[in-house]
């Protein structure tokens, strides 16, 4: 029997954003994105859950040291996005609409450069308690 285990680390960040497609005029943005397109921005408490699936290391008993996982998320995600304006402050969204979908894929791509590829990672992002996304699907 496989001794694969899923481990989860939860982190959070608070950011401003607006949904905006630079190829469209203000009217079209408002029509498609409604109040989410407010030019003065709005914001969220984002909750991030990173799931890793892998074998238990027989020496440590860990799939991955959760303190190290937390440090990787803090250094590469939270410091980048917390108390920031995703559209204005974050180069990742200079040309990319910061929807929850695009944010979760961006987070996955950044983290995957720092997590052992032998571990299968899934990232879930809550924009509100009621709206959340997951990647890979």
């Amino acid at each position, binding site marked *: 029997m496989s001794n694969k285990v899923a481990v989860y680390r939860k982190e*959070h960040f*608070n*950011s*401003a*954003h607006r949904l905006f497609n630079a190829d469209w005029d203000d009217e079209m943005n408002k029509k498609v994105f409604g*109040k*989410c397109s*407010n030019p*003065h*921005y*709005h*914001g*969220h*408490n984002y909750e991030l859950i990173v799931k890793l699936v892998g074998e238990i290391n027989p020496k440590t008993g860990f799939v991955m040291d959760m303190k190290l996982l937390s440090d990787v998320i803090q250094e590469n995600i939270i410091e980048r996005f*917390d*108390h*920031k*304006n995703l559209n*204005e*402050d974050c180069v990742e969204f200079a040309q990319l609409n910061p929807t929850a979908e695009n944010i979760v894929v961006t987070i996955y791509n950044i983290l995957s450069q720092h997590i052992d590829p032998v571990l299968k990672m899934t990232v879930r992002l809550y924009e*509100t*308690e009621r709206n959340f996304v997951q990647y890979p699907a």
Partner: protein
Amino acid sequence: MVYITRIEHFNAAHKLYNPRWSKEKNEEVFGKCANEKWHGHNFELYVTIKGIPDIETGFVYDAKKLSAIIKEHVTEKLDHKNLNLDVDFMEGKLCSIENLVIGIWEQLVPHIPPSIELHCLKLYETPRIYVEYFGEK
């Protein structure tokens, strides 16, 4: 006397920034909350009223009607807005949750029917930070 609470929510951008101070002084006092380009939160608002249950309905006050009052006079003005730029009743005030909860109280009081009394507002900025306000007694 029975106390009944209605919970509403709104998502907004803001910054903590005193315009009479330099950028450096603002960053010293408010830290990353002073980011000039904003950040944001999912705010949760708990509105508690008190009164005697009506003999005919059993209600202190119809919670659906209370929700409509809060939506019309508070959350529609705050949801998907920039609290510093878009909200008339926060104009000229520092955008802390302390000041926001007082502003919300002042918005609500004139619309609370005489049969009940506004008892308490509880405003969550994050799941870990909230303020309570009972009005000036």
